[in-house]
């Protein structure tokens, strides 16, 4: 087989996705308003196709393509599978929400799929340019998705904020990349990693590192580059928030691993201190400010910030086990966030947004089952066993304690106690307060089913977290 085909085969999932996304885009132009469901089904099929090709072309060993700009490895494959899976869930949760509102239906799915393409390229990046390419493809799709509600003032405002701040962050990232390129003479992450030690004490290298970290922190929404997160989460339509708040976190994690571990592992002792500061600040500000929120999307935004801080702890441990625990944390967070934002969508009826915390009042009377699901999700976010969120925190803490940073672990758990308060408040609203409106919830069967599976997974995987943990540990071979 000619070389080019071998290389194309490595990128087959991306190619399939690109093709099917274009197909969805074109088909959507011709379907009538009434049969919009077709777009949705096609979008799901596109993700399914990605899923299948990912599994079918998985080679099990690390190989790169296109002049060392694109890498296919176990880490990438696993993350891509989870990206496809979580986007598929997002698409389902979003379906009825979009249908009952004045939000362009087809565009949401097409942009969403392009975003997935961006995430997959980002995950597979083996050079600085590929990182940037994937990142921009993802970001541009998300800017547009936030702006989809063009008649909404808050949505336009948050789209503008997101775009301007995102552009600045991208600029910083590029600037940092140019410095690293200038020092090492290469864009390939693997080559950079071999040369970086020569420039360990070089001031330009440090600047490059710091600017790259700014870019990563912005994408993650880590303090002090978190300002966009609450505004964008609150301003966007809930379906868009759901999208932004879930799969892109997996991509951001991949970006962090590609840049800091694949590329700049030699500077670990330098970036560890910075990441410690970012992690502590994120946990502190995220958890404390979340307490003051009355809008659930905004509260979850601050909670995201705190979770990002927590998962950074696993990264800064700098051991394969630490990276694996951070990855586990990311995946667990994504699963829980899917459920939580999904619940906000589920609570929102026709023309009614369940954005205020009070709309969760008395949910136990209206629907005991979904109150229970939300209870699982909230306790999982708070890190209470036996739910999955506990094991995520457990693994990260373990890797932090293993490198003798016990004080950092102690600080982290103190912040998670602060965080427990606002999750408990949701449980309190659902169980201890009386409902404001007694309408039973109108939920479609597929949403009902998937939401239940989503919540129960958080419980059941928590009882036996082995296999998902094993996936994470296996992709970070002991160096």
């Amino acid at each position: 087989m000619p070389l080019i085909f071998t290389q194309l085969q490595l990128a087959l999932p991306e190619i399939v996705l690109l093709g099917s996304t274009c197909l969805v885009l074109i088909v959507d132009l011709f379907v009538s308003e009434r049969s919009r469901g077709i777009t949705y089904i096609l979008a799901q099929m596109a993700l399914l196709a990605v899923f299948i090709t990912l599994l079918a072309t998985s080679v099990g060993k690390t190989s790169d393509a296109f002049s060392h700009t694109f890498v296919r490895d176990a880490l990438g494959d696993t993350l891509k599978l989870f990206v496809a899976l979580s986007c598929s869930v997002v698409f389902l949760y979003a379906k009825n929400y979009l249908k009952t509102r004045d939000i362009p239906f087809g565009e949401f799915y097409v942009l969403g799929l392009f975003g997935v393409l961006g995430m997959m390229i980002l995950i597979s990046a083996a050079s600085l340019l590929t990182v940037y390419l994937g990142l921009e493809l993802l970001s541009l799709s998300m800017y547009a998705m936030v702006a989809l509600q063009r008649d909404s003032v808050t949505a336009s405002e948050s789209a503008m904020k997101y775009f301007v701040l995102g552009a600045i962050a991208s600029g910083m990232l590029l600037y940092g990349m140019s410095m690293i390129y200038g020092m090492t003479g290469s864009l390939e992450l693997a080559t950079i990693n071999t040369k970086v030690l020569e420039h360990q004490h070089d001031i330009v290298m440090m600047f490059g590192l710091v600017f790259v970290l700014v870019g990563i922190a912005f994408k993650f929404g880590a303090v002090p580059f978190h300002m966009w997160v609450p505004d964008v989460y609150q301003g966007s339509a809930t379906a868009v928030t759901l999208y932004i708040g879930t799969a892109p976190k997996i991509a951001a994690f991949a970006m962090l691993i590609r840049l800091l571990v694949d590329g700049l592992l030699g500077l670990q002792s330098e970036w560890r201190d910075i990441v410690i500061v970012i992690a502590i600040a994120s946990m502190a500000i995220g958890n404390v400010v979340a307490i003051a929120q009355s809008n659930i999307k905004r509260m979850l935004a601050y909670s995201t910030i705190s979770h990002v801080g927590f998962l950074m702890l696993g990264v800064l441990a700098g051991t394969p086990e630490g990276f694996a625990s951070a990855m586990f944390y990311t995946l667990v967070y994504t699963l829980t966030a899917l459920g939580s934002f999904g619940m906000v969508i589920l609570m929102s009826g026709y023309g009614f947004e369940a954005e205020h915390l009070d709309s969760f009042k008395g949910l136990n009377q209206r629907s005991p089952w979904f109150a229970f699901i939300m209870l699982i999700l909230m306790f999982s976010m708070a890190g209470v066993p036996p739910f999955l969120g506990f094991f995520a925190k457990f693994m990260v803490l373990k890797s932090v304690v293993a490198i003798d940073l016990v004080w950092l672990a102690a600080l982290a758990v103190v912040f998670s106690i602060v965080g427990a308060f606002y999750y408990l408040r949701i449980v309190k609203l659902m169980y201890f307060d009386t409902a404001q409106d007694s309408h039973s919830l109108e939920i479609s069967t597929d949403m009902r089913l998937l939401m239940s599976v989503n919540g129960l997974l958080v419980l059941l995987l928590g009882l036996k977290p082995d296999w998902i943990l094993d996936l994470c540990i296996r992709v970070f071979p002991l160096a």
Partner: protein
Amino acid sequence: MLDSHLLSLLIGLPLLGGMLVLATGGDKNAPEARVLALVCSLVVLGLSVVLYQKFALGTSKMQFVELYDWIRVGSLRANYHLGVDGISMPLIVLTSFMTLIVVIAGWEVIQYKVAQYMASFLFMQGLMNGVFAALDAALFYVFWEAMLIPMFIVIGVWGGPRRVYATIKFFLYTFFGSVFMLIALLYLAIQIGGFDILQMHSVKLSMQEQVLIFIAFLLAFAVKVPMWPVHTWLPDAHVEAPTGGSVILAAIMLKLGAYGFLRFSLPITPDASQALDGLMISLSLIAVVYIGFVALAQQDMKKLIAYSSISHMGFVTLGFFIVWSIGRSQGNYHGAVMGIEGAMVQMISHGFVSGAMFLCVGVMYDRMHSRMINDYGGVVNTMPVFAAFAVLFAMANAGLPGTSGFVGEFMVILSSFKANFWYAFAAASTLVLGAAYTLWMVKRVIFGAVANDRVAKLSDINSREFFFLGLLSLMVFVFGLYPAPLLDAMDATVTDLVRHITQSKLLPGG
């Protein structure tokens, strides 16, 4: 077959039963939910009687051991490891017994979300049995924390007017203590490459490590016991909790903290325990004496019993930590075993007595909807049978000889005499104080002339209430007159524990 999975059944059946009860759905199926909960708690009680009967005396080894892989990835080794010894077995039986009582006590009283109420208690039972039976630290922690969730719900949904404040305070307080224990457990797990508690018992640690780990454990267990000064959540939680919640809280949950001292603090960090025993004894005596005075001043019956619980639990921690003072003053450890055994008896006895006291308050509250002492007076005139029970339990609470309350207190005081006269002196003051606050309350509530019309209209206890109060008074007498079965069961384990903790674990030269 039954033997090798008995502990799993004791944990799993209540959890399964809880799910079944939940599945009965809304309040229109409340009778089914009640019956199902009753059947389940009866079966579990039956199983724990089997556990007691088949429990081999005279050995400190873990019995009914179950060991399976649980999580095995990378460097993480956590097992599903269960087993009981003389310390945990009586507590499991106590849990099963009290859960049955709570189910019966909530039979007619709870009319709102019955299935969820009953299921919460069954879940708690399974999780608490899990805490007592777990021999793997990760598993222990999972049970330990998960237990907070049903209690959080119970206080919050069926509690009094300030229930939200009380339950969030309860949750955050206990959560705060526990997370530091998690870090200590992780640290230990990294040292030994696994979470096996019995292996942790034999790991060598330097003094500095021991002190830090001891403090981390102390935060978790002192909050749970609760010891002065981290006791403030307890009166709030007790006052606001429904009767059943108070009973489980006082009878079992407080014991979990004390159990933690025996299972973790003492054996894992004996040298730190020895070095800090002065602190622990002081905190215990403050609880006994100062909280005793605080109890004297209470107007709310539930609050009074809550403070009395803290004071009684001070005895328990005193009994645990006088071991080394006995060694220092006597040159040997004779009497140390009696201190710990006395504390254990006190735990079991307090489980029955405090549970019974809360149930008595509950019986009155169901009729009068008030817990204030001033609203009562002369209850004996309208509720003679109830008054007899109430006086009996009050006597037991005050430590009257012949009741179970006496045995534990007496053993602890006796062995603290061997340690230091003043310890014993301070501890013995509880005999006066305990009698004072309990009997004064009884005098104001039960005796005297009928205070008001509402008391005059009270009706005496029905057969259901008679049944559970009678059952409890039986236990109070049994353990008061013949505590030997309990002592026999724990003797070998406690003796072995004292031998273990009086040997230094410091590395040579460490």
